[in-house]
Protein backbone atom coordinates (compact mmCIF):
# COMPACT_ATOMS: atom_id res chain seq x y z
CA UNK A 1 0.00 0.00 0.00
CA UNK A 2 2.75 2.41 1.01
CA UNK A 3 4.80 1.45 -2.01
CA UNK A 4 1.78 2.19 -4.20
CA UNK A 5 1.43 5.67 -2.72
CA UNK A 6 5.10 6.39 -3.31
CA UNK A 7 4.78 5.19 -6.90
CA UNK A 8 1.82 7.53 -7.40
CA UNK A 9 3.67 10.48 -5.89
CA UNK A 10 6.70 9.80 -8.06
CA UNK A 11 4.54 9.57 -11.18
CA UNK A 12 2.82 12.91 -10.47
CA UNK A 13 6.17 14.50 -9.73
CA UNK A 14 7.62 13.45 -13.08
CA UNK A 15 4.48 14.44 -14.95
CA UNK A 16 4.42 17.78 -13.18
CA UNK A 17 8.03 18.60 -14.08
CA UNK A 18 7.39 17.51 -17.65
CA UNK A 19 4.28 19.66 -17.87
CA UNK A 20 6.04 22.71 -16.47
CA UNK A 21 9.11 22.24 -18.63
CA UNK A 22 6.94 22.17 -21.77
CA UNK A 23 5.26 25.44 -20.74
CA UNK A 24 8.44 27.12 -19.54
CA UNK A 25 10.59 26.38 -22.59
CA UNK A 26 7.62 26.70 -24.96
CA UNK A 27 8.41 23.34 -26.59
CA UNK A 28 6.23 22.86 -29.67
CA UNK A 29 3.73 19.99 -29.60
CA UNK A 30 5.27 18.18 -32.54
CA UNK A 31 8.58 17.85 -30.64
CA UNK A 32 7.33 16.95 -27.17
CA UNK A 33 3.69 17.45 -26.17
CA UNK A 34 2.87 18.13 -22.52
CA UNK A 35 1.29 15.29 -20.48
CA UNK A 36 -2.03 17.11 -20.36
CA UNK A 37 -2.16 17.31 -24.17
CA UNK A 38 -1.29 13.62 -24.46
CA UNK A 39 -4.01 12.56 -22.05
CA UNK A 40 -6.57 14.76 -23.77
CA UNK A 41 -5.58 13.34 -27.16
CA UNK A 42 -5.80 9.81 -25.78
CA UNK A 43 -9.37 10.53 -24.65
CA UNK A 44 -10.60 12.65 -27.57
CA UNK A 45 -9.07 10.40 -30.22
CA UNK A 46 -10.35 7.26 -28.51
CA UNK A 47 -12.74 6.49 -31.39
CA UNK A 48 -9.70 6.34 -33.71
CA UNK A 49 -7.35 4.64 -31.26
CA UNK A 50 -9.71 2.02 -29.88
CA UNK A 51 -10.21 -0.13 -33.03
CA UNK A 52 -6.43 -0.17 -33.51
CA UNK A 53 -5.84 -1.02 -29.85
CA UNK A 54 -8.30 -3.87 -30.21
CA UNK A 55 -6.29 -5.32 -33.11
CA UNK A 56 -3.02 -5.02 -31.19
CA UNK A 57 -4.64 -6.54 -28.11
CA UNK A 58 -5.86 -9.53 -30.10
CA UNK A 59 -2.37 -9.95 -31.55
CA UNK A 60 -0.76 -9.84 -28.11
CA UNK A 61 -3.15 -12.30 -26.52
CA UNK A 62 -3.02 -14.69 -29.46
CA UNK A 63 0.77 -14.44 -29.39
CA UNK A 64 0.81 -15.38 -25.71
CA UNK A 65 -1.55 -18.28 -26.37
CA UNK A 66 0.60 -19.46 -29.26
CA UNK A 67 3.74 -19.34 -27.13
CA UNK A 68 2.03 -21.26 -24.32
CA UNK A 69 0.73 -23.95 -26.66
CA UNK A 70 4.28 -24.68 -27.74
CA UNK A 71 6.32 -23.81 -24.66
CA UNK A 72 4.36 -25.95 -22.16
CA UNK A 73 4.62 -29.32 -23.93
CA UNK A 74 8.17 -28.49 -24.94
CA UNK A 75 9.19 -27.77 -21.36
CA UNK A 76 7.59 -31.03 -20.21
CA UNK A 77 9.34 -33.04 -22.91
CA UNK A 78 12.69 -31.44 -22.17
CA UNK A 79 12.19 -32.12 -18.46
CA UNK A 80 11.22 -35.73 -18.99
CA UNK A 81 14.04 -36.42 -21.43
CA UNK A 82 17.24 -34.61 -20.44
CA UNK A 83 18.93 -35.98 -23.55
CA UNK A 84 16.50 -34.02 -25.69
CA UNK A 85 17.14 -30.95 -23.58
CA UNK A 86 20.88 -31.32 -24.08
CA UNK A 87 20.45 -31.69 -27.82
CA UNK A 88 18.05 -28.81 -28.27
CA UNK A 89 19.12 -26.16 -25.79
CA UNK A 90 22.19 -24.89 -27.73
CA UNK A 91 19.90 -24.08 -30.65
CA UNK A 92 17.39 -22.42 -28.38
CA UNK A 93 20.04 -20.24 -26.79
CA UNK A 94 21.51 -19.38 -30.19
CA UNK A 95 18.07 -18.41 -31.45
CA UNK A 96 17.95 -15.77 -28.74
CA UNK A 97 20.90 -14.01 -30.32
CA UNK A 98 18.88 -13.31 -33.47
CA UNK A 99 17.24 -9.89 -33.16
CA UNK A 100 13.54 -10.16 -33.75
CA UNK A 101 13.67 -6.94 -35.78
CA UNK A 102 15.72 -8.85 -38.31
CA UNK A 103 13.10 -11.51 -38.94
CA UNK A 104 10.11 -9.16 -38.79
CA UNK A 105 10.29 -8.24 -42.50
CA UNK A 106 10.63 -11.93 -43.38
CA UNK A 107 7.54 -12.82 -41.40
CA UNK A 108 5.64 -10.10 -43.25
CA UNK A 109 6.82 -11.56 -46.54
CA UNK A 110 5.80 -15.06 -45.53
CA UNK A 111 2.56 -14.36 -43.69
CA UNK A 112 1.39 -11.06 -45.17
CA UNK A 113 0.26 -7.78 -43.71
CA UNK A 114 -2.51 -9.32 -41.64
CA UNK A 115 -2.51 -10.25 -37.99
CA UNK A 116 -0.85 -13.67 -38.42
CA UNK A 117 2.65 -12.24 -38.82
CA UNK A 118 2.26 -10.14 -35.66
CA UNK A 119 0.89 -13.04 -33.62
CA UNK A 120 3.85 -15.13 -34.66
CA UNK A 121 6.21 -12.29 -33.83
CA UNK A 122 4.81 -11.87 -30.32
CA UNK A 123 4.78 -15.64 -29.86
CA UNK A 124 8.41 -16.07 -30.90
CA UNK A 125 9.57 -13.35 -28.54
CA UNK A 126 7.97 -14.83 -25.43
CA UNK A 127 8.31 -18.53 -26.21
CA UNK A 128 11.80 -18.64 -24.74
CA UNK A 129 11.22 -16.89 -21.39
CA UNK A 130 8.13 -18.99 -20.74
CA UNK A 131 9.88 -22.23 -21.68
CA UNK A 132 12.96 -21.50 -19.60
CA UNK A 133 11.09 -20.38 -16.50
CA UNK A 134 8.80 -23.41 -16.56
CA UNK A 135 11.65 -25.85 -17.15
CA UNK A 136 13.63 -24.22 -14.35
CA UNK A 137 10.60 -24.59 -12.09
CA UNK A 138 10.35 -28.32 -12.81
CA UNK A 139 14.05 -28.81 -12.29
CA UNK A 140 14.23 -27.04 -8.93
CA UNK A 141 11.58 -29.27 -7.42
CA UNK A 142 12.48 -30.40 -3.91
CA UNK A 143 14.65 -33.51 -3.88
CA UNK A 144 12.95 -35.09 -0.89
CA UNK A 145 9.49 -34.63 -2.33
CA UNK A 146 10.67 -36.33 -5.52
CA UNK A 147 11.89 -39.24 -3.43
CA UNK A 148 8.55 -39.41 -1.68
CA UNK A 149 6.83 -39.70 -5.05
CA UNK A 150 9.28 -42.36 -6.14
CA UNK A 151 8.56 -44.35 -2.98
CA UNK A 152 4.86 -44.11 -3.72
CA UNK A 153 5.55 -45.44 -7.21
CA UNK A 154 4.16 -42.38 -8.97
CA UNK A 155 4.31 -42.36 -12.76
CA UNK A 156 5.18 -39.41 -15.01
CA UNK A 157 1.73 -37.88 -15.39
CA UNK A 158 0.74 -38.18 -11.75
CA UNK A 159 4.06 -36.70 -10.66
CA UNK A 160 3.56 -33.89 -13.15
CA UNK A 161 0.07 -33.11 -11.96
CA UNK A 162 0.55 -33.53 -8.22
CA UNK A 163 4.17 -32.49 -7.75
CA UNK A 164 6.08 -30.77 -10.55
CA UNK A 165 3.37 -28.46 -11.88
CA UNK A 166 2.28 -27.07 -8.51
CA UNK A 167 5.93 -26.67 -7.59
CA UNK A 168 6.77 -24.86 -10.84
CA UNK A 169 3.71 -22.58 -10.90
CA UNK A 170 5.41 -19.57 -9.22
CA UNK A 171 8.21 -19.79 -11.80
CA UNK A 172 5.72 -20.21 -14.59
CA UNK A 173 3.85 -17.08 -13.58
CA UNK A 174 7.09 -15.12 -13.25
CA UNK A 175 7.90 -16.09 -16.84
CA UNK A 176 4.40 -15.27 -18.00
CA UNK A 177 4.58 -11.82 -16.41
CA UNK A 178 7.74 -11.07 -18.32
CA UNK A 179 6.09 -12.58 -21.37
CA UNK A 180 2.99 -10.39 -21.43
CA UNK A 181 5.03 -7.19 -21.37
CA UNK A 182 7.47 -8.37 -23.99
CA UNK A 183 4.68 -9.69 -26.22
CA UNK A 184 3.51 -6.09 -26.59
CA UNK A 185 6.85 -5.16 -28.10
CA UNK A 186 6.66 -8.08 -30.53
CA UNK A 187 3.24 -7.10 -31.81
CA UNK A 188 4.15 -3.43 -32.23
CA UNK A 189 7.39 -4.18 -34.07
CA UNK A 190 5.42 -6.39 -36.42
CA UNK A 191 3.02 -3.53 -37.06
CA UNK A 192 5.81 -1.04 -37.68
CA UNK A 193 7.30 -3.18 -40.38
CA UNK A 194 4.09 -3.59 -42.24
CA UNK A 195 0.43 -3.48 -41.23
CA UNK A 196 -2.90 -1.94 -42.11
CA UNK A 197 -4.15 -1.50 -38.57
CA UNK A 198 -3.04 -1.64 -34.95
CA UNK A 199 -1.40 0.79 -32.54
CA UNK A 200 2.02 0.37 -34.13
CA UNK A 201 0.54 1.20 -37.51
CA UNK A 202 -1.22 4.21 -36.03
CA UNK A 203 2.03 5.45 -34.49
CA UNK A 204 3.87 5.22 -37.82
CA UNK A 205 1.07 7.08 -39.57
CA UNK A 206 0.89 9.78 -36.93
CA UNK A 207 4.65 10.19 -36.84
CA UNK A 208 4.76 10.73 -40.61
CA UNK A 209 2.30 13.60 -40.20
CA UNK A 210 4.22 15.06 -37.23
CA UNK A 211 1.16 14.33 -35.11
CA UNK A 212 3.33 13.65 -32.07
CA UNK A 213 0.34 14.02 -29.79
CA UNK A 214 -1.21 10.94 -31.34
CA UNK A 215 2.07 9.00 -31.18
CA UNK A 216 2.27 9.59 -27.46
CA UNK A 217 -1.43 8.89 -26.99
CA UNK A 218 -0.90 5.51 -28.68
CA UNK A 219 2.04 4.79 -26.39
CA UNK A 220 -0.18 5.65 -23.44
CA UNK A 221 -2.81 3.19 -24.61
CA UNK A 222 -0.17 0.53 -25.18
CA UNK A 223 1.22 1.04 -21.68
CA UNK A 224 -2.24 0.79 -20.18
CA UNK A 225 -2.88 -2.45 -22.08
CA UNK A 226 0.42 -3.89 -20.86
CA UNK A 227 -0.40 -2.95 -17.28
CA UNK A 228 -3.87 -4.47 -17.49
CA UNK A 229 -2.50 -7.74 -18.86
CA UNK A 230 0.23 -7.77 -16.25
CA UNK A 231 -2.21 -7.26 -13.38
CA UNK A 232 -4.53 -9.87 -14.84
CA UNK A 233 -1.72 -12.43 -14.71
CA UNK A 234 -0.93 -11.28 -11.17
CA UNK A 235 -4.53 -11.76 -10.06
CA UNK A 236 -4.67 -15.15 -11.73
CA UNK A 237 -1.48 -16.13 -9.93
CA UNK A 238 -2.87 -15.10 -6.54
CA UNK A 239 -6.08 -17.03 -7.23
CA UNK A 240 -4.32 -20.22 -8.27
CA UNK A 241 -1.39 -20.26 -5.84
CA UNK A 242 -3.32 -20.20 -2.58
CA UNK A 243 -0.73 -22.06 -0.54
CA UNK A 244 2.55 -21.24 1.16
CA UNK A 245 5.72 -23.24 0.81
CA UNK A 246 7.21 -23.60 4.29
CA UNK A 247 10.87 -22.79 4.62
CA UNK A 248 11.79 -26.38 5.51
CA UNK A 249 11.17 -27.28 1.88
CA UNK A 250 13.68 -24.77 0.66
CA UNK A 251 17.26 -25.98 0.22
Amino acid at each position, binding site marked *: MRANIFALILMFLVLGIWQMACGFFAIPDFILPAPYEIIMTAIIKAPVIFPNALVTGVEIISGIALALVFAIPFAMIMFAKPSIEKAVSPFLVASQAIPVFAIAPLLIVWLGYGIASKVLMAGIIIFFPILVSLLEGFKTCDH*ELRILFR*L*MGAGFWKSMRLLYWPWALPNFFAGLKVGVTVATIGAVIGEWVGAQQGLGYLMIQANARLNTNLVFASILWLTAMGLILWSFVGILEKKIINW*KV*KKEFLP
Partner: protein
Amino acid sequence: MLYVSQLSKRFGKNEIFSDFNLTIPENKFIVLIGPSGCGKTTLFDVLTGVTPMEKGNILWKGLRVKNLEKRCAYMQQKDLLLPWLTLLENAVLPAEISGADLEKSKIKAESLFKRMGLAGYENFRPHEISGGMRQRCALIRTLMFPHDFILLDEPLSSLDAITRRRLQSLLLLLQTEFSKTLLMITHDIEEALLLADEIYLLSVQPMGIREKFILDSPKPRKFNDPLLLEIEEHVMDVLQGDISGDTGGETGGDKGYRWR
Protein backbone atom coordinates in the same frame (compact mmCIF):
# COMPACT_ATOMS: atom_id res chain seq x y z
CA MET B 1 9.71 -61.33 6.51
CA LEU B 2 12.78 -59.13 6.12
CA TYR B 3 16.33 -60.33 6.46
CA VAL B 4 19.18 -57.87 6.04
CA SER B 5 22.81 -58.88 6.08
CA GLN B 6 26.23 -57.31 5.59
CA LEU B 7 24.77 -53.91 4.87
CA SER B 8 27.38 -51.19 4.40
CA LYS B 9 27.02 -47.49 3.93
CA ARG B 10 29.47 -44.63 3.95
CA PHE B 11 29.27 -40.92 3.20
CA GLY B 12 32.67 -40.12 1.77
CA LYS B 13 35.18 -41.29 4.35
CA ASN B 14 32.53 -41.36 7.06
CA GLU B 15 31.56 -44.99 7.56
CA ILE B 16 28.03 -45.00 8.96
CA PHE B 17 27.76 -48.78 9.23
CA SER B 18 29.45 -51.79 7.77
CA ASP B 19 28.34 -55.38 7.96
CA PHE B 20 25.04 -54.50 9.60
CA ASN B 21 22.56 -57.35 10.09
CA LEU B 22 18.90 -57.26 11.02
CA THR B 23 15.99 -59.68 11.00
CA ILE B 24 12.40 -58.49 11.09
CA PRO B 25 9.74 -61.14 11.79
CA GLU B 26 6.24 -60.73 10.41
CA ASN B 27 3.53 -58.90 12.39
CA LYS B 28 5.99 -57.69 15.00
CA PHE B 29 6.61 -54.24 16.38
CA ILE B 30 10.36 -53.63 16.27
CA VAL B 31 11.87 -50.51 17.78
CA LEU B 32 15.33 -49.06 17.21
CA ILE B 33 16.92 -46.85 19.84
CA GLY B 34 20.27 -45.19 19.47
CA PRO B 35 22.18 -41.98 20.03
CA SER B 36 21.47 -39.07 17.72
CA GLY B 37 23.55 -39.24 14.57
CA CYS B 38 24.33 -42.94 14.83
CA GLY B 39 22.77 -43.68 11.44
CA LYS B 40 19.21 -44.79 12.09
CA THR B 41 17.70 -42.55 9.43
CA THR B 42 20.47 -43.57 7.05
CA LEU B 43 19.56 -47.23 7.64
CA PHE B 44 15.94 -46.53 6.72
CA ASP B 45 17.05 -44.55 3.67
CA VAL B 46 19.21 -47.43 2.51
CA LEU B 47 16.49 -50.01 3.11
CA THR B 48 13.92 -48.04 1.15
CA GLY B 49 16.29 -47.10 -1.65
CA VAL B 50 16.29 -43.38 -0.88
CA THR B 51 20.10 -43.54 -0.83
CA PRO B 52 22.15 -46.29 -2.44
CA MET B 53 24.18 -48.70 -0.32
CA GLU B 54 27.76 -49.83 -0.87
CA LYS B 55 26.98 -53.48 -0.40
CA GLY B 56 24.64 -55.81 1.40
CA ASN B 57 21.86 -58.30 0.93
CA ILE B 58 18.18 -57.68 1.45
CA LEU B 59 15.95 -60.71 1.56
CA TRP B 60 12.30 -59.74 1.36
CA LYS B 61 9.72 -62.50 1.83
CA GLY B 62 12.25 -64.99 0.56
CA LEU B 63 13.17 -62.86 -2.44
CA ARG B 64 16.48 -61.10 -2.97
CA VAL B 65 15.71 -57.48 -3.71
CA LYS B 66 17.72 -54.33 -4.31
CA ASN B 67 15.68 -52.32 -1.84
CA LEU B 68 12.16 -52.03 -0.48
CA GLU B 69 11.05 -49.27 -2.85
CA LYS B 70 7.30 -49.66 -3.50
CA ARG B 71 7.17 -52.57 -1.04
CA CYS B 72 6.88 -50.63 2.20
CA ALA B 73 5.47 -47.44 3.67
CA TYR B 74 8.10 -45.04 4.94
CA MET B 75 7.37 -42.12 7.22
CA GLN B 76 10.41 -39.89 7.06
CA GLN B 77 11.68 -37.67 9.83
CA LYS B 78 10.44 -34.59 7.95
CA ASP B 79 6.71 -34.57 7.38
CA LEU B 80 7.02 -33.77 3.64
CA LEU B 81 3.40 -32.76 3.24
CA LEU B 82 2.62 -31.14 -0.11
CA PRO B 83 1.82 -27.47 0.60
CA TRP B 84 -0.66 -27.19 -2.27
CA LEU B 85 -2.87 -30.03 -1.09
CA THR B 86 -5.29 -30.05 1.84
CA LEU B 87 -4.57 -32.42 4.72
CA LEU B 88 -7.12 -34.90 3.44
CA GLU B 89 -5.70 -34.77 -0.08
CA ASN B 90 -2.24 -35.28 1.38
CA ALA B 91 -3.46 -38.25 3.36
CA VAL B 92 -5.00 -40.01 0.37
CA LEU B 93 -2.02 -39.28 -1.87
CA PRO B 94 -0.71 -42.87 -1.75
CA ALA B 95 -4.15 -44.12 -2.79
CA GLU B 96 -4.42 -41.55 -5.56
CA ILE B 97 -1.03 -42.50 -6.93
CA SER B 98 -1.55 -46.24 -6.75
CA GLY B 99 -4.89 -45.75 -8.48
CA ALA B 100 -6.96 -47.15 -5.62
CA ASP B 101 -10.61 -46.24 -5.04
CA LEU B 102 -10.41 -42.60 -3.91
CA GLU B 103 -13.82 -42.46 -2.24
CA LYS B 104 -13.10 -45.52 -0.10
CA SER B 105 -9.67 -44.17 0.80
CA LYS B 106 -11.17 -40.85 1.81
CA ILE B 107 -13.57 -42.60 4.18
CA LYS B 108 -10.70 -44.56 5.71
CA ALA B 109 -8.56 -41.43 6.00
CA GLU B 110 -11.39 -39.48 7.59
CA SER B 111 -11.80 -42.11 10.27
CA LEU B 112 -8.06 -41.90 10.94
CA PHE B 113 -8.34 -38.10 11.18
CA LYS B 114 -10.93 -38.60 13.92
CA ARG B 115 -8.85 -41.15 15.77
CA MET B 116 -5.72 -38.97 15.60
CA GLY B 117 -7.57 -35.93 16.89
CA LEU B 118 -7.44 -34.09 13.57
CA ALA B 119 -11.18 -34.12 12.85
CA GLY B 120 -12.29 -30.79 11.40
CA TYR B 121 -8.89 -30.05 9.90
CA GLU B 122 -9.36 -32.11 6.74
CA ASN B 123 -9.54 -29.08 4.48
CA PHE B 124 -6.73 -27.08 6.07
CA ARG B 125 -3.43 -26.59 4.28
CA PRO B 126 -0.16 -27.74 5.87
CA HIS B 127 1.01 -24.16 6.50
CA GLU B 128 -2.08 -23.49 8.59
CA ILE B 129 -1.45 -26.15 11.25
CA SER B 130 1.16 -26.86 13.90
CA GLY B 131 4.19 -29.13 13.63
CA GLY B 132 2.59 -31.82 15.75
CA MET B 133 -0.51 -31.80 13.58
CA ARG B 134 1.60 -32.04 10.45
CA GLN B 135 3.35 -35.03 11.92
CA ARG B 136 0.05 -36.75 12.63
CA CYS B 137 -1.09 -36.04 9.09
CA ALA B 138 2.14 -37.54 7.76
CA LEU B 139 1.50 -40.59 9.94
CA ILE B 140 -1.99 -40.96 8.49
CA ARG B 141 -0.55 -40.74 4.98
CA THR B 142 1.97 -43.44 5.84
CA LEU B 143 -0.80 -45.71 7.12
CA MET B 144 -2.66 -45.18 3.83
CA PHE B 145 0.08 -46.88 1.82
CA PRO B 146 -1.19 -50.22 0.52
CA HIS B 147 1.69 -52.08 2.21
CA ASP B 148 1.90 -54.17 5.37
CA PHE B 149 5.48 -53.25 6.26
CA ILE B 150 5.84 -49.78 7.75
CA LEU B 151 8.99 -47.86 8.60
CA LEU B 152 8.49 -44.99 11.05
CA ASP B 153 11.28 -42.51 11.73
CA GLU B 154 10.46 -40.81 15.05
CA PRO B 155 6.77 -40.56 14.16
CA LEU B 156 5.62 -39.01 17.43
CA SER B 157 8.63 -36.83 18.26
CA SER B 158 6.96 -33.43 18.06
CA LEU B 159 3.80 -34.26 19.99
CA ASP B 160 2.85 -33.30 23.51
CA ALA B 161 2.95 -36.07 26.13
CA ILE B 162 -0.78 -36.69 26.22
CA THR B 163 -1.29 -36.83 22.47
CA ARG B 164 1.75 -39.03 22.24
CA ARG B 165 0.31 -41.54 24.69
CA ARG B 166 -2.95 -41.55 22.78
CA LEU B 167 -1.24 -42.16 19.47
CA GLN B 168 0.93 -44.87 20.96
CA SER B 169 -2.17 -46.85 21.90
CA LEU B 170 -3.58 -46.09 18.48
CA LEU B 171 -0.46 -47.42 16.79
CA LEU B 172 -0.75 -50.64 18.79
CA LEU B 173 -4.38 -50.96 17.89
CA LEU B 174 -3.77 -50.34 14.19
CA GLN B 175 -0.89 -52.78 14.11
CA THR B 176 -3.05 -55.65 15.33
CA GLU B 177 -6.18 -54.45 13.53
CA PHE B 178 -4.54 -54.40 10.10
CA SER B 179 -1.81 -56.92 10.99
CA LYS B 180 1.10 -54.72 9.98
CA THR B 181 4.78 -55.15 10.62
CA LEU B 182 6.32 -52.03 12.13
CA LEU B 183 9.91 -50.90 12.33
CA MET B 184 10.14 -47.70 14.34
CA ILE B 185 12.91 -45.31 15.39
CA THR B 186 12.39 -43.42 18.61
CA HIS B 187 14.35 -41.51 21.25
CA ASP B 188 11.66 -42.17 23.84
CA ILE B 189 12.63 -45.25 25.83
CA GLU B 190 9.25 -45.51 27.54
CA GLU B 191 7.57 -45.45 24.16
CA ALA B 192 9.79 -48.31 23.04
CA LEU B 193 9.03 -50.32 26.17
CA LEU B 194 5.29 -49.83 25.87
CA LEU B 195 5.03 -50.73 22.18
CA ALA B 196 7.84 -53.03 21.14
CA ASP B 197 8.02 -56.76 20.75
CA GLU B 198 11.73 -56.35 20.20
CA ILE B 199 14.02 -53.44 20.98
CA TYR B 200 17.40 -52.96 19.33
CA LEU B 201 19.83 -50.74 21.14
CA LEU B 202 22.28 -49.33 18.60
CA SER B 203 25.86 -48.20 18.94
CA VAL B 204 27.73 -45.45 17.12
CA GLN B 205 30.51 -45.30 14.55
CA PRO B 206 30.03 -47.61 12.89
CA MET B 207 26.46 -48.34 13.81
CA GLY B 208 25.87 -51.83 15.13
CA ILE B 209 23.45 -53.69 17.34
CA ARG B 210 24.71 -53.31 20.84
CA GLU B 211 21.92 -55.17 22.56
CA LYS B 212 18.61 -56.74 21.74
CA PHE B 213 15.68 -57.03 24.13
CA ILE B 214 12.79 -59.34 23.51
CA LEU B 215 9.66 -58.23 25.32
CA ASP B 216 6.88 -60.78 25.32
CA SER B 217 4.69 -59.38 28.04
CA PRO B 218 1.16 -58.74 26.74
CA LYS B 219 0.10 -55.35 25.44
CA PRO B 220 -1.18 -52.80 26.31
CA ARG B 221 1.44 -52.60 29.01
CA LYS B 222 1.53 -50.66 32.22
CA PHE B 223 4.72 -48.90 32.96
CA ASN B 224 4.95 -50.06 36.57
CA ASP B 225 6.17 -53.50 35.46
CA PRO B 226 9.50 -53.95 37.29
CA LEU B 227 11.05 -55.72 34.31
CA LEU B 228 10.36 -52.72 32.09
CA LEU B 229 11.74 -50.36 34.67
CA GLU B 230 14.90 -52.38 34.91
CA ILE B 231 15.41 -52.35 31.15
CA GLU B 232 14.77 -48.64 31.04
CA GLU B 233 17.39 -47.96 33.66
CA HIS B 234 19.89 -50.13 31.85
CA VAL B 235 19.26 -48.47 28.47
CA MET B 236 19.57 -45.04 30.07
CA ASP B 237 22.90 -46.05 31.58
CA VAL B 238 24.22 -47.24 28.26
CA LEU B 239 23.08 -44.14 26.35
CA GLN B 240 24.49 -41.81 29.00
CA GLY B 241 27.78 -43.66 28.75
CA ASP B 242 27.75 -42.85 25.04
CA ILE B 243 27.20 -39.19 25.63
CA SER B 244 29.94 -38.81 28.21
CA GLY B 245 32.11 -40.71 25.79
CA ASP B 246 33.54 -43.41 28.06
CA THR B 247 32.61 -46.23 25.71
CA GLY B 248 34.45 -46.62 22.47
CA GLY B 249 33.46 -49.24 19.94
CA GLU B 250 35.77 -51.79 21.57
CA THR B 251 34.73 -51.49 25.18
CA GLY B 252 31.03 -51.05 24.43
CA GLY B 253 30.28 -54.74 24.68
CA ASP B 254 32.35 -55.33 27.79
CA LYS B 255 30.45 -53.39 30.39
CA GLY B 256 29.85 -56.57 32.29
CA TYR B 257 26.10 -56.28 31.88
CA ARG B 258 24.14 -58.41 29.40
CA TRP B 259 20.50 -58.64 29.10
CA ARG B 260 19.12 -62.14 29.40
